């Protein structure tokens, strides 16, 4: 008995019961399709969060005043009103830190920007020139402001695409024009490249960048700074950079060993990990739910194979009487089960990929069909076929030909 013959026998047996074979397959098709689509949704959202977070600069470190520290009577203040971060802190980090390549203060305020007859509510951020490097932002047009602009608190600015669109008519170049922010005139010297929404749905193009000194003095009238942005050497050294920055700031703030930090240091890598693990959990959850349907599909195969063995008892008896050995019968039923599950698996994979595409097209959810999920679900459904097909096949192969032939 060669294997090829057995496959032909099994195929013909399935052909005799096309509808039943298809219905049995349906369990596997839906199971595999669901696993692939669900994992694709999970992986897709994970990937898109990761991409967006690293597009913000994956080696970026953010230092904020700690809102847990209290002022005076114990009332806790909003982080932006805390005044613990100073320009001296930035300079201290710049001088001492070995794992930091760039550091920039940041202050921000909201207000109304006006250009000619148009106006737009937006926010202005006061930063150092190297803020662009830290954030990995680029200019589409014009030039960045310089350290001299910072020293002189020049009224120059870089504007984002959303601001351009709302303050200038189409085709008009904003560079060289003057806009007014809270009645202060700023000369536009550059336009930032478009960045779209970030992972949290904020428009990253709705922004005006100006020298921090200008924003501090002319807009906010504050001596302190609100945040410090820094860039670590690379992604891997962000932990060391964090420790280093904490140490420098503790010294600069003259904190005692027992005092809590009056600032918080966050790395982008941490943020990425947090979101990744959340979406990883989502992926696992979705895959688990889909996996259950795959198991149900497998049980469907077992059920149908059992019914089939009983129903085809007479056929089994006949096959045995004309020379089929136990092993031939066992393999025939096993191959039938495997063919059902593999065919179902292939259709399921196609269905899963199609479903993922449709989800992306119609729901605009990011999906990512990973090869590993295809390989894995294919293996799982083959194993399912063998596992759930084995016992019915053994039952068939152990039938007594005499009784099987007389079975009604």
């Amino acid at each position, binding site marked *: *008995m*060669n294997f090829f*013959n057995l496959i032909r*026998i099994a195929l013909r047996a399935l052909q005799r019961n096309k509808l039943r074979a298809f219905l049995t397959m349906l369990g596997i098709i839906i199971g595999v399709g669901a696993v692939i689509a669900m994992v694709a949704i999970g992986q897709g959202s994970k990937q898109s969060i990761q991409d967006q977070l690293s597009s913000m600069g994956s080696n970026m470190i953010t230092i904020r005043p700690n809102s847990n520290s209290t002022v005076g009577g114990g009332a806790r203040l909003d982080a932006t009103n805390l005044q613990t971060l100073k320009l001296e802190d930035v300079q201290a980090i710049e001088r001492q830190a070995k794992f930091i390549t760039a550091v920039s203060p940041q202050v921000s305020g909201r207000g109304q920007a006006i250009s000619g007859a148009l106006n737009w509510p937006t926010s202005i951020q006061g930063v150092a020139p190297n803020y662009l490097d830290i954030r990995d932002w680029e200019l589409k047009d014009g030039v960045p402001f310089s350290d001299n602009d910072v020293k002189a608190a020049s009224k120059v600015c870089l504007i984002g695409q959303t601001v351009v669109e709302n303050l200038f008519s189409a085709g008009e170049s904003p560079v060289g024009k003057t806009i007014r922010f809270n009645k202060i005139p700023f000369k536009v010297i550059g336009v930032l490249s478009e960045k779209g929404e970030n992972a949290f749905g904020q428009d990253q193009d709705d922004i005006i960048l100006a020298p921090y000194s200008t924003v501090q003095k002319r807009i906010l009238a504050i001596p302190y700074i609100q945040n410090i942005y820094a860039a670590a050497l690379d992604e891997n050294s962000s932990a060391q950079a964090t420790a280093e920055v904490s140490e420098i700031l503790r010294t600069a703030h003259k904190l005692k060993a027992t005092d809590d930090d009056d600032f918080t240091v966050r790395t982008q890598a941490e943020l990425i990990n947090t979101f990744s693990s959340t979406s990883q959990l989502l992926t696992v959850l979705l895959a688990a739910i889909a996996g259950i349907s795959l198991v149900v599909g497998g049980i469907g195969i077992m059920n149908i194979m059992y019914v089939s063995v009983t129903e085809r008892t007479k056929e089994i008896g006949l*096959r*045995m009487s*004309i*020379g*089929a050995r136990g092993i031939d019968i066992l393999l025939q039923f096993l191959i039938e089960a495997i063919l059902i599950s593999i065919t179902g698996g292939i259709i399921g994979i196609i269905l899963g990929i199609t479903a993922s595409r449709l989800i992306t097209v119609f729901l605009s959810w990011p999906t990512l069909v990973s090869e590993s999920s295809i390989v894995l679900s294919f293996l799982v459904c083959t194993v399912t076929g063998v596992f759930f097909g084995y016992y019915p096949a053994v039952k068939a192969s152990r039938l007594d030909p*005499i009784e099987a032939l007389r079975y009604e």
Partner: protein
Amino acid sequence: MNNSNNNNKILEIKELKREFRMGTEIVRALKGVSFDVSPGEFVTIMGSSGSGKTTLLNVLGCLDKPSDGTYLLDGVNIGQLSRDELARLRNRKIGFVFQAYNLLARTSALENVELPLFYNSALTASDRRERAIKALEAVKLAERLDHMPNQLSGGQQQRVAIARALVNEPVMILADEATGNLDTRTSYEIMALLQELNQNGKTIVFVTHEPDIAAFSSRTVMLRDGRVIKDSKNENIKSARQALADLPVTDDY
């Protein structure tokens, strides 16, 4: 074949016994049966129910093994064979014809006939097809190759089954009440076909309880209570073709 004996018998049965244990009771279905079958014989094994006929058929068909005694099929002692070796023997040496035809539903006549050959790995697909067509020609169904069993009459279905029994060129055709489900005319047609095959040299063992059918064979072995009570040559073999011609025409409606 090396181990065949001098007389070159197809079947040699000596003191064959078969016992079944039913709970605490032992049922002795065959109590010592002995007879031989030579090549080219057409033997009917007769007996009423309970005579051990079915048990003997199972043993003859290598579906069951005797409890005691010897059974040589074409010189091979089946008492010493494993389940798989018995399956191989059935595949190569025996052609079964059943009362209920036992064709696979939704499977063409050709594929049904090919079936035994699938369990013989020595054959290629074209061998299989060629031999199956030849077997169907032998039962005069060459025009019905692609018909499904439900498109064939009972007699035609039984002829497909006979073709299936012929296709592996067995040393013996073993028929179990092969006309039991057919009307008189169709029964005679089947008997005529078997007689023709027999005249061309096929050894046929036909198990039945109808004396009418036994008249067409060359020898009758009568069983009762697990023993042979009569084993006689039939001097006056009835021709099934003649019997068919003698049937009153009014039988058709």
